[in-house]
């Protein structure tokens, strides 16, 4: 995978029209530059437009104002350079893990032999090599999310967007997935933007933590995590972490919903 992938969001505003109700302003003038190969975590209270922001960056939603560019080329629709991992695995239940993982390649018109070639590497990347033939219903929640991540990596996106990808997992599995995501990032060098509710998760993963305001979402603060890599779980006990956590909490406005 390439090291290209500078993601630039400029002045994004999104308003949702709802029947018989005033329009909801999800985002209002959100701007952010994510450098290539950087890991940025986005944290904010419920309903502050974090998921909306990822949908705009993935080209699934056109903002009323503002634009997103990747390496100076605008994103105007779903784009193979950007991969989005949803909060839920969203696997096709009637397909095997293998056929789910290669689904994007199939849609892109790859012949079967080429799909199979890449499949082995993708499954290896997320540690699913033994489950290729299984149905999603036979897997645990964690394994399903691994399959979903492999699927998003299939087209080798330059930017990986993750929308609270581990929120359905138990605490221990979640920590392991965080470490594995870091390893994956070291191997692929892709730019990562992860939306999360967890301050420790944000600090462990990110170079910078973007704190958002309550709706309509804007950047409240950007907290740099000045810690060397590779990071491990031990790092979560250090002084840098508690300082960063305190700073993030201070910027999260007191709605008390982010933990």
């Amino acid at each position, binding site marked *: 995978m390439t090291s290209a992938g500078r993601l630039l969001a400029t002045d994004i505003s999104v308003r949702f029209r709802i029947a018989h109700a005033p329009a909801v302003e999800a985002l209002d003038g959100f701007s952010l530059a994510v450098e290539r190969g950087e890991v940025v975590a986005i944290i904010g209270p419920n309903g502050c437009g974090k998921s909306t922001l990822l949908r705009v960056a993935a080209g699934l939603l056109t903002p009323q104002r503002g634009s997103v560019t990747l390496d100076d080329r605008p994103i105007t629709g*779903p784009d193979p350079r950007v991969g989005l991992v949803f909060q839920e695995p969203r696997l*096709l239940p009637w397909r095997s893990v293998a056929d789910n993982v290669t689904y994007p390649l199939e849609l892109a018109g790859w012949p079967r032999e080429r799909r199979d070639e890449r499949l082995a590497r993708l499954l290896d990347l997320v540690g699913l090599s033994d489950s290729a033939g299984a149905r999603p219903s036979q897997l645990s929640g964690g394994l399903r999310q691994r399959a979903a991540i492999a699927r998003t990596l299939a087209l080798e996106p330059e930017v990986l967007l993750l929308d609270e990808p581990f929120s359905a997992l138990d605490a221990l599995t979640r920590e392991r997935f965080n470490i594995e995501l870091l390893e994956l990032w070291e191997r692929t060098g892709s730019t990562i933007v992860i939306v999360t509710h967890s301050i420790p998760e944000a600090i462990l993963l990110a170079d910078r933590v973007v704190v958002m305001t309550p709706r309509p979402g804007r950047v409240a603060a950007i907290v740099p995590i000045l810690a060397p890599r590779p990071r491990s779980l031990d790092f979560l006990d250090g002084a840098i972490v508690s300082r960063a956590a305190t700073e993030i909490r201070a910027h999260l406005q007191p709605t008390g919903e982010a933990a």
Partner: protein
Amino acid sequence: MNRNAAASVAISFAAFLAVWKLVVVVGGYPLFILPPPEVVAERFVQAWGDGVMTPHALTTLQEIALGFIVGAGAGLAIGYGLARSALVERLVSPYIVAAQATPILALAPLLALWFGPGLASKVVICGLIVFFPIAVSTMVGIRSVDAGLLEMARSFRATRRQVLLTLEIPAALPSILGGMRVGVTLAVVGAIVGEWAGAQQGLGLLVNLARGSLFDIPLMFATLVTIALLGIALYLVVVVLERRLVGVR
């Protein structure tokens, strides 16, 4: 089917025959009201052996097959339209419901008048009666496709056609096949009703002939048995198809 299931089917069928025979004996019914099972069985074998039944059965089967294909095809297309377009639903659904609410028995003579006593009128009647359950089950199936999966497919730049083939149809298949189970049995009803409204050949006509000019009540029962078996066989075809297509999920 495992051995236990086969045994229970055989036992229930034997019980059905025993009750039938008991009713005939206890009630003392004459042959032209309720013939006993063994007489019907004998007449059934004879009618198939001497070639009386075969052409009628083939005619009815052809009507059912064509009617089902026409009705199911239209049901799938309109059902998809109903699910995906509010405009289609507003414009079309009142007529569909009205057509369904009008008894097919009342429509059959009119359709026979318009389309003649041949194959065409039966295909239309069959098609009409098959259409509704399949249109509704397709609509329900397509509507129930998870919005999250649709968004996922869109994020991988699936075309409309790819969404239809790789996502909507597989997701709606259990529901559609449920509609087909109902539809295929109704197709048998449609063909027989169509034949009653006027026909030169077919099992529905044979029932009428056996009761009327032939006055061969065991033949009438043998024909009814044939119709029932045809319905069961077609239903099983759909069930097998369902196992193949839906299988383990």
